Structure formats: structure tokens, C-alpha cells
């Protein structure tokens, strides 16, 4: 489960480093070819949020996101990684603009894929309007980049999950890889509980949270294309695989997505719990899914075969 980190090759380190636990910097350092990351507007530039001071809150020099350029198996890639521990990885003005700028450049170039390592609770409250708008701009920039032929790959497995507008951006990506710990949703568990009551959703029932929003459910639904084990190396391999798999974006993909989602509503719209959905999907003993080891789960998900490839 663990080993000392000294005297290891980068791949061994990446294999033994939990994606969930690692910092955004460590994730990028180990995800990309060793030493290949070039960061844009790094922390030494001190481009901090101009808004946190109003609330007497501490700033972070990179505003909670690292954007840059690196190499994956020798090929160029643009990367963005959110730091889920700084303000829950939330989108603020500077944080969001860094990703927008990266996506705009990718669009102009057209051939270099973009990896987004999501780790976010959504909009940063203290700059809610700027954060919301940043997300809108990112969604637009993702779609413009994809239309220009860029593959935009989302990786979800951080501690803050991928919530709020982050969930919408993830929905705009060409493909997603998610780990068991990853969560993708719009409203967070506490938000649902606050609005609908604990009977509707008990946010402290973490098994419920994960089977409603967690990586396994998202993979089985076809919302995510690949299921990665929780190591940076697994995410690296997933990213490489997805870059190879993603096809061009166009109207056909959107029409297929409309059908894919409509079909999901028809089949599962009356289900009250994920276990029902999994059962209808033909999984025997669906209630054991959360306990299933990774390799068996991947085999099962591949057999069920639900994917959003060419339909997003």
C-alpha cells in the first residue's frame, strides 16, 4: 500500500502516490513526463485573487490552480490542475481566467490536447459573480477548442470532487476519467440536504453520497469513459488512453448525447437509488458494487459497456 519515496523511478513514484491525497503540484509533476512542466503565471508572479482581502481571507500565490505546458509520453499537452485544499478548489476570477486563457491558446493551436485535473467545490463564494462568469467563459472556451479539434480531457479524483460549475465544465469535456473517490455533481450533498431535508438526502451518509455522485456510479452511467485506480500513474495512463480514443467533435456527437441522455431518463428516470439503476443495467448483486475491487469493477463496467464516447 505504500513504500518510501526515495530512490524510486518517476513511474514508481506516480504509481505509489495517491491522486486523491496528492497536491495539485505533485499530481502534475508525476502525471507528466519528468521535469517537463512549464507553468504559466506561476506562484512567483503572485497573481493572487484581488477579492479575498475584502473578506480578510488569506490568498494563495497561484490562486489555487496551476496551468502550463508539459509532455505526456513525449507528446505536448496543456495542463490545468486545481488545488482542492485551497478554498475547496473553487473558481474565482484569476483562477478561472488562467484556465480560460489556456483553452483559448489550445484552440488557436488546434492540435495540443488539454488535461484538466478537476478538484473543485464550484464557484468561490467570496467572488461568486466573477467565479460564475469564469465558468461560463471556460465552458465556452472548451467548446470552441473542441470545435477546433482540441481534445479536452477531464480527470476527476480529488478530495473536493467536481461540483457546481466544475461539474458542468466536466460535462463539456471530450472525455472523463474518474477514480472511485471522485465525485461529479452539480449540487453538493449538504446543499441538497439543506434544501430538501435530511429525509431526501443525508449528507453524512457517505456511502449514499458516493453511490449517488461517486466515481463508480458515474462510470456505470457512462458519464465517465474510464475508471482509474487512485494513483497518479493510473490517471496518467487513463489520460493517454483517452487522448487516443477521442474522436472529432460535431453535431453528430451532440445529437448522440441528446439520445444518450434521453435514453438514460427513460430507463432510469423512476429510480430512487443508484442500486436500482445498476440492477436495471443488468448487474447481479448490484448492492455489492461499492465494495468491488478495482479490477473487477473495470471488467464489469466494460461489460455493461455504457460510455459517452462519440456522444458528448
Amino acid at each position, binding site marked *: 500500500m505504500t513504500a518510501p519515496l526515495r530512490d524510486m523511478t518517476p513511474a514508481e513514484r506516480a504509481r505509489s502516490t495517491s491522486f486523491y491525497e496528492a497536491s495539485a503540484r505533485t499530481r502534475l509533476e508525476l502525471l507528466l513526463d519528468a521535469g517537463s512542466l512549464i507553468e*504559466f503565471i506561476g506562484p512567483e508572479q503572485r*497573481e493572487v485573487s*484581488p*477579492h479575498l482581502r*475584502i*473578506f480578510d481571507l488569506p490568498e494563495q500565490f497561484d490562486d489555487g490552480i496551476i496551468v502550463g*505546458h508539459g509532455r505526456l509520453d513525449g507528446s505536448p499537452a496543456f495542463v490545468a490542475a486545481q488545488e482542492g485544499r485551497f478554498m475547496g478548489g473553487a473558481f474565482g*476570477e*484569476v483562477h*478561472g*481566467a*488562467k484556465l*480560460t*486563457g*489556456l483553452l*483559448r*491558446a489550445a484552440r*488557436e493551436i488546434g492540435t495540443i490536447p488539454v488535461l484538466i485535473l478537476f478538484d473543485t467545490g464550484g*464557484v468561490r*463564494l*467570496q467572488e*461568486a*459573480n466573477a467565479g*460564475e*462568469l*469564469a*465558468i461560463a*467563459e471556460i465552458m*465556452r472556451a472548451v*467548446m*470552441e477548442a473542441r*470545435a477546433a479539434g482540441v481534445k479536452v480531457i477531464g480527470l476527476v479524483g480529488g478530495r473536493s470532487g467536481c461540483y*457546481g*460549475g466544475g*461539474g*458542468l465544465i466536466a*460535462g*463539456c469535456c471530450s472525455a472523463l476519467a474518474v477514480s472511485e473517490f471522485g465525485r*461529479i*455533481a*452539480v*449540487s453538493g450533498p449538504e*446543499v*441538497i440536504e439543506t434544501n430538501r431535508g435530511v429525509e*431526501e*438526502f443525508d449528507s453524512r451518509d457517505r456511502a449514499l453520497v458516493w453511490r*449517488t*455522485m461517486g466515481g463508480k456510479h*458515474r462510470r456505470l452511467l457512462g458519464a465517465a469513459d474510464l475508471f482509474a485506480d487512485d494513483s497518479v500513474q493510473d490517471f496518467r495512463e487513463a489520460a493517454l488512453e483517452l487522448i487516443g480514443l477521442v474522436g472529432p467533435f460535431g*453535431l453528430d456527437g*451532440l445529437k448522440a*448525447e*441528446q439520445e444518450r*441522455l*434521453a435514453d*438514460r*431518463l427513460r430507463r432510469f428516470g423512476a429510480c*430512487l437509488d443508484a442500486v436500482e*439503476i445498476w440492477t436495471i443495467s443488468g448487474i447481479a448483486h448490484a448492492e455489492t458494487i461499492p465494495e468491488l475491487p478495482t479490477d473487477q469493477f473495470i471488467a464489469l463496467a466494460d461489460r455493461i459497456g455504457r460510455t459517452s464516447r462519440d456522444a*458528448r
Partner: protein
Amino acid sequence: MTPDNILTALFPDGHQVRNDKGVLLGSATRRSGTCMLVLGVADRTAVGVDEAIRLSGHVLGSIDRDDGPILVLVDSDSQRMSKRDELLGLNEFLAHLAKVLIYADMNGRPTIGLIYGHSAAGALLATGLATRVLVGLPGADPAVMDLPSMAKVTKLSMEALEQKANSTPVFAPGLSNLAQMGAVQMTWNYAAPLADQLEALLADMPAVQDLRDMLGKERGGRLKAAEIGERVRDLALQAR
């Protein structure tokens, strides 16, 4: 304002827009006699999976026809905050709606959002903020996050928050704040016919390019976004 009033004022020559449980779907005839696709959310309805799929379906269904520009009317709640919606993947449904609108806009079907009531969070992202031009009507009250909820999370008093809101448009609800940020490009008024204002906009649509960060800078609401975005873009273009 009711959606009926607004539709009548926008399209005096008639429209076929139906309001089915808060979801507006249809089309309308412009002053010029040409057609315009209309969709939207009315009556402060929450946008969940059921609403989103119908809205996106309406746009996709028209995409091979030339139904003209697309108008998205907005008076919604936030996204529907329920177990069922999240279980079914609300993020994909909302993203899909936004994608469809963005795709249409990029492919010869200019999109205009018109917010005349409320909206918030994920619902606003999937509707008004996914259009090329978002227009506000007087009385609209979009709120990314309402102040009472903010007070709870930030542990600040409402008074303290309201005071801070006076000095910055960056967090507090309201049309004028969103306008200052560059999210709402213009606000129409009821003094002139809405139909004329719509025609004027359509006659002079900005290019298919996201200029909201520039606008936010011009209006003094977002001083950083455009510059940061531009710097990253330049660095990235040099780095390859």
C-alpha cells in the same frame, strides 16, 4: 412581467411559444417577418434533468432547419437540488444544454439570452450564460449566491455583507452587478418597444467571440480576468 407579456411585446406579429410547467418551447415571427427559435424557463422553475433535456432537444430539433436566431428567456430558480437529478447526472444534462446553445451560436444561429426574472448557479450557466449576448430586463434579479446563504457560510452578518457589496460588484446578487462583471451585455427598457430593441440587437450582433472578460474590464467589474487570460494565452502560444 409574465412570459406572455414579454413574448407579445417582443413579437407583436405573433409567436407559437407554449409554457409547459415552466418550460418555454416554440418559435416566433420577427418584425422582419423571419423566424426566431424561442426557448426558456419561466415562473422561477428549477432546471433539472427533465427541463434540460426538453430545452436541448428543442434546439437540436431545429438545428437542421433554418429557424433563425435563438432566444432564451430566463426566469428560473437555480438547478433543481434533488437526489434524483444528481443521481441521473444533472451536470451532463445542464452541460449538454449549454453545449447545444454554444454549438448553435457558433454555427450560424446567433443566441440571445433574455433574463427577465430570477436565475442562479447551474441554471444560469446552462441558459443565459451559454448565449452570445445576455440581455437583462429591468426588474430581473439574478443571484449566483443569495446573501443569507453567503452569510451562513462566511459567518459574516448580513449588514457586513451588504456593506461590502457596496464597494464591489464581485459577489452580491443583482442585474447591475452581473452587468458590471460583463455577464449581462445590455439592459433593455420598457420605454421603447421590446421588439425594436430586439431587432436593433439582431441587426448589430457582436462577432462570435467571447468578449465578456473585456467587457468586465471596461466596466470596471472584473479588472483581472481579461489580462490574466491574455497573458496565459500568450505564454501558451509561445510554449509549444
